[in-house]
């Protein structure tokens, strides 16, 4: 039996072997991250990279982001709008390193953000296709636009009773309420808050529960606003959840979203009506009511104009009638030089009743002439006055 060697001799041998095989070599690997421990103050992150086959773990190796690579995690979270957390699949560049005390590790140098984005987009597409396939009555894709029962619902003429789903004491809650309260038209709103966590693993379930509460009182609301503070780096994965999206698509009260991300659209945004930010949702509501007020002002103006026109027309008709009556009065006729011929106090209209020798009175404007008919002859042609 040979004498034992020192452990350090063996670990040195391992180190030398690994170094000679892997020195300077960078590998690109895909794996699931688990046991993530981030230390922001020292800008380090310890984790394990794992691989699974049919739900069973087949590989696990420790990995670390050192300070010089920590910004990769920040970039990942910023671009994908989701936290770097357990269970996330990533593709990254690593170097193999062995330390006699700390053992075998992979140093992560870079995360393939484009690959992660692609994976996320693929999942998103699959959810969208499933929504259309499994909810044909409520969700249709027409010319690239998702038309849902909810986003096709007609809005009430005035929006005043609002159900607000948001996180307590959040920027989104404050911005939304402030914009409504400070509206320059002094419209009044009744806002009922349904407060819940809207970020994190269970957020989609919690939002769904709030929607179910609202659905039980659907007659009490004109609109549902789901808002989240702008600028948040938190993930919007809850808003891509199939169950939540399907529920929103067929929800019986119009839903508006302002979940605060400019770059991407969540699937809930597509199922409802998207306004990007809480402030924009509130501004849209105020604008909608302003449109109604404008329509009302227009009707009032048209009504006043129509009434004025009708009265003017009636006045004109009356004036015209008065003029005709005035022109037809015997006094006016005499004033204009005509005369009235009477016989025994009766006006003579038909000249055939006049005979020679008859006594007639010719009534002029100021005088009456009494005369006796001495001769009567027919006019050669009808009097043309």
């Amino acid at each position, binding site marked *: 039996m040979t004498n034992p060697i020192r452990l350090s001799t063996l670990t040195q041998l391992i180190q030398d072997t690994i170094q000679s095989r892997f020195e300077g070599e960078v590998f690109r690997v895909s794996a699931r991250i688990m046991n993530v421990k981030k230390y922001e103050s020292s800008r380090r992150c310890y984790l394990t990279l794992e691989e699974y086959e049919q739900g069973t773990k087949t590989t696990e190796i420790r990995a670390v982001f050192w300070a010089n690579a920590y910004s990769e995690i920040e970039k990942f979270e910023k671009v994908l709008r989701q936290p770097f957390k357990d269970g996330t699949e990533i593709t990254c560049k690593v170097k193999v390193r062995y330390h006699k005390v700390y053992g075998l590790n992979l140093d992560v140098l870079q995360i393939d953000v484009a690959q992660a984005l692609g994976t996320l987009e693929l999942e998103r597409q699959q959810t969208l296709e499933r929504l259309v396939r499994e909810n044909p009555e409520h969700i249709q894709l027409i010319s690239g636009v998702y038309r849902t029962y909810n986003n096709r619902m007609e809005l009430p003429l005035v929006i005043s009773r609002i159900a607000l789903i948001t996180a307590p004491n959040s920027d989104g809650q404050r911005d939304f309420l402030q914009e409504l309260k400070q509206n320059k038209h002094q419209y009044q709103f009744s806002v009922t808050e349904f407060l819940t966590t809207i970020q994190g693993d269970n957020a989609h379930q919690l939002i769904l529960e709030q929607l179910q509460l609202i659905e039980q009182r659907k007659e009490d609301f004109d609109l549902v606003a789901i808002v989240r503070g702008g600028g948040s780096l938190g993930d919007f994965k809850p808003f891509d959840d199939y169950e939540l999206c399907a529920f929103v698509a067929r929800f019986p009260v119009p839903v508006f979203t302002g979940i605060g991300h400019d770059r991407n659209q969540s699937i809930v945004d597509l199922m409802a009506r998207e306004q990007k930010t809480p402030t924009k949702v509130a501004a849209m509501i105020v604008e909608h009511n302003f449109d109604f007020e404008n329509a009302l002002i227009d009707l009032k103006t048209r*009504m006043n104009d129509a009434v004025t026109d009708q009265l003017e027309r009636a006045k004109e008709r009356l004036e015209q009638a008065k003029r005709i009556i005035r022109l037809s009065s015997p006094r006016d006729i005499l004033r204009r030089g005509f005369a009235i011929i009477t016989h025994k106090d009766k006006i003579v209209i038909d000249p055939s009743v006049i005979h020679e020798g008859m006594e007639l009175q010719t009534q002029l404007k100021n005088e009456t002439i009494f005369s006796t008919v001495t001769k009567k002859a027919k006019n050669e042609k009808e009097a043309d006055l």
Partner: protein
Amino acid sequence: MKKKLTYNEAFTKLEELVEQLEDGRIPLDKLADNVKQANEWVALCETKLRQIEKEIEEAADTNSKKGSTKK
């Protein structure tokens, strides 16, 4: 008893009346009554914008345990 109109119904009636007025279909002797009625409808619609209706406030009082109402 006369049924109280909703603002929605009032707005629709107002639209119809204005069309009738513009077409000259309202007789002169009915004009004053119609205008009075129309102004009541306008007031009802304007109220909807700037004053929360009493029933909404009552509904807010009986809010769900989770919900709270802000005005």
